[in-house]
């Protein structure tokens, strides 16, 4: 009898053990991706999950409306350029941090000055590297002094630059460093912000829970939060994510493979949608001859490669919903992204003709380096082989490929770039065409235009300069844009979810239906 009771109790316990309470009935939105968040502090992490969290938890000085891409007042209510390198901003009054302290100019200065310091160990420095220092004018007015004219300043100050209270980073633990020394682990401090949601719990590598901030200030362009709790969970396996979504353990997932998307589409309680992302896929061709004398230094060969690949077929049939052929070496949603540039249609005969003209009637052999999506790289290689270019795939992890790129070892590299979420053409062009170790084109003229565009405040002139640079990049086929990745989202039909083109999940704008 006793054994029977124990078994019965155990069975009940099994049945009672339910997964995380998700869904409309529990006012809890559970979202899941396969990536473990490295830190919720956006400045010290470079995962998109941290960016998504930062948008919901934190406020920056400005807010870029994800639908119109217009810069709106957030913690700064108004601003003006006093000269090309001084930006004065009036700050919002009556705003409180989640720990109850009042927000003021000192918080902005302390946060940005800490990060802009050369020893801040910040991960993607481009976001703050332009800042010389931030000066407090009065309790609610600051001046940002930049090192040089920075036309992308508003982009850097919106979304990706959350403001923390003064003294925030003083809580960073002292941890062992190299050679018996110690270092401060700045990214280990949990962010305290002013945003629509506040952190309730964080389990590194596992989950992060946000709860609604009932005191969120009126008049925020982000709007007042409506969903009570937002929980992030890492689930590595896509099949498991799908199973959790179907059974209501999770409310929102992305990166759904086409085969799962088709199945989920048949379910009435699940919504499946696709959208483009900011990640582009392209071939970096050694036009500059950094790997030594090679056929790719001839523009006819590079154009032949461009004509040899059916980018439309790869984007549609292989990459799937949401993906699109990339017209220029930038993402259309970025400021200055000129897409009216030379296009190369799929024409293998023309490719063969160009190769023959360049002195390679029977093609040639070349090493083809890749690291991310092997099937896509193999598809490209098959197209190249069809015109006689015998590309030999060297598929490596990023950390193994990166030193080869720097050491002039990659005649063709199949790369991807997400622009670090920046909606400005400088993010991609600046990374690849300004004579950095990533630059295999090394074109002085392009570099000059880009440098000028990055130092000019006039948007019209900037657009013209980016247009010139991107047109020449395309015309010379320095780098060959292939496609822009798409993402398929699947979420409970109870959710009114705002789909945007910036590859972001703006959960603070979501509502239950």
């Amino acid at each position: 009898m006793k054994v029977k009771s124990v078994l019965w109790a155990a069975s009940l316990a099994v049945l009672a053990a339910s997964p995380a309470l998700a869904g409309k009935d529990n006012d809890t939105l559970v979202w899941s991706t396969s990536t473990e968040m490295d830190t919720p502090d956006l400045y010290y992490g470079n995962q998109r999950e941290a960016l998504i969290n930062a948008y919901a938890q934190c406020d920056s000085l400005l807010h870029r409306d994800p639908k119109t891409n217009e810069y709106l007042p957030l913690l700064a209510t108004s601003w003006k350029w006093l000269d090309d390198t001084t930006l004065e901003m009036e700050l919002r009054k009556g705003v409180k941090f989640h720990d109850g302290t009042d927000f003021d100019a000192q918080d902005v200065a302390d946060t940005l000055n800490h990060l802009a310091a050369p020893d801040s160990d910040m991960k993607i420095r481009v976001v703050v590297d332009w800042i010389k220092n931030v000066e407090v004018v009065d309790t609610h007015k600051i001046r940002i002094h930049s090192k040089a004219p920075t036309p992308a300043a508003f982009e850097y100050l919106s979304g990706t630059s959350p403001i923390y209270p003064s003294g925030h980073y003083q809580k960073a633990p002292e941890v062992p460093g190299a050679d018996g020394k110690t270092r401060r682990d700045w990214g280990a401090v949990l962010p305290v912000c002013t945003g629509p949601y506040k952190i309730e719990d964080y389990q590194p590598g596992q989950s992060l829970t946000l709860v609604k901030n009932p005191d969120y200030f009126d008049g925020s362009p982000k709007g007042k939060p409506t969903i009570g709790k937002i929980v992030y969970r890492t689930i590595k396996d896509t099949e498991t994510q799908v199973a959790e979504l179907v059974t209501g353990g999770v409310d929102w997932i992305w990166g759904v493979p086409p085969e799962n998307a088709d199945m989920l589409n048949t379910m009435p309680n699940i919504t499946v949608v696709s959208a483009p992302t900011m990640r582009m896929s392209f071939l970096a061709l050694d036009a500059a001859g950094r790997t030594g004398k090679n056929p790719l230094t001839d523009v006819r060969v590079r154009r032949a490669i461009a004509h040899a690949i059916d980018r439309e077929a790869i984007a549609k049939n292989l990459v799937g919903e949401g993906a699109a052929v990339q017209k220029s070496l930038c993402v259309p949603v970025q400021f200055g992204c000129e897409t009216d540039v030379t296009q190369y249609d799929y024409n293998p005969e023309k490719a063969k003709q160009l190769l023959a003209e360049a002195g390679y009637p029977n093609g040639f052999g070349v090493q083809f380096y890749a690291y991310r999506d092997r099937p896509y790289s193999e598809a490209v290689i098959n197209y190249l082989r069809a015109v006689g270019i015998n590309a030999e795939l060297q598929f490596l992890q990023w950390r193994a490929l990166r030193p080869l790129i720097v050491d002039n070892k990659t005649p063709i590299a199949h790369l991807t770039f997400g622009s670090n979420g920046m909606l400005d053409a400088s993010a991609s062009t600046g990374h690849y065409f300004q004579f950095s170790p990533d630059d295999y084109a090394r074109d002085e003229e392009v570099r000059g235009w880009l440098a000028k565009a990055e130092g000019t405040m006039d948007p019209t002139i900037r657009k013209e300069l980016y247009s010139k640079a991107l047109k020449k990049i395309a015309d010379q086929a320095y780098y060959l844009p292939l496609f822009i990745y798409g993402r398929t989202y699947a979420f409970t039909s109870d959710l009114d979810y705002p789909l945007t083109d910036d590859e972001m999940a703006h959960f603070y704008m979501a509502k239950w239906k």
Partner: protein
Amino acid sequence: MREISRTPSKDMAYFILKRLCVTFLVIAVTSVVAFLLVHLSGDPAAAMAGEGATESDIAAVRQLYGFDRPLIVQYFDWIGRVLQGEFGRSYYLRMDVSDILAEHMPVTATLGVLALSFAMLLSIPLGVLAALNPNTLIDRIALWLAVAGQALPSFVFALGLMYLFGVYFRLLPISGGATWAHFIMPAVALGYYATPAIMRLTRSGMMDVLQSDHVRTARAYGLAPWRVVIRHGLRHAIIPVVSLAAVQLGFMLGGSIVIETIFSLKGLGYLAWESIQRADIEVIQAILLVIATTYAFLTLFADLLNAALDPRIRMS
């Protein structure tokens, strides 16, 4: 003649000393190999800085973590800290490695013990039944179960379980490790993989024992059949099974990447895999060292046990 002149306790002491030396050598070599493998497979700073990083971002990481120093200096810096009981810090999770291990090891240990228990509960009775009914339908079914366990990839079996009990019947939680119920499906999926070997060993052992003189004698005395099987048969047949189970447990304590990934259990296997992907060097090195040390000491323990039981081993 030399061995005969020694006393058993001297033999044992010599044997222990020899085995201890080998064990520490194995651990030392593993630590060097682990260190080299991680450092020579690419630029850890590039992985740590991320794909969007510029060369100066990567250079800053290289300097911050001391990757710009010669490998030998880095190795002795690391091993020096390990010898002081300091495993370092995960650059990615921003936690001390010892805390991360303390968090992940119980998950893997729970999964390993449950999986092995399931495997033994399933395979030993099956093995006994098969041995008692050789070449019958029961034997065939037991064999089929064993073959299925060997032939079926663990991820297929795991996903099948998940679909049936998680999605279709909705009886068990699908992912995570919050309650003991979360461990049922992973333990079954992992344990089933260990079933065939244990079942076959039990079956063959039982068949040998059942034909032995002492079992025949026990039967002749008119003892109850179950008593003959359990007390006089299984008791002897199970000795090699226990050895095998210990090896399987060692394997399971290393963590199962596939099972832990599918069921989103934050165990040691999952942690190792994730850390390799993101070049979280201090975590990888600590895991390899812990696993190597566990294996080395388990082997040492088994050797010592065998030597204590069988004098021929320690004499050889």
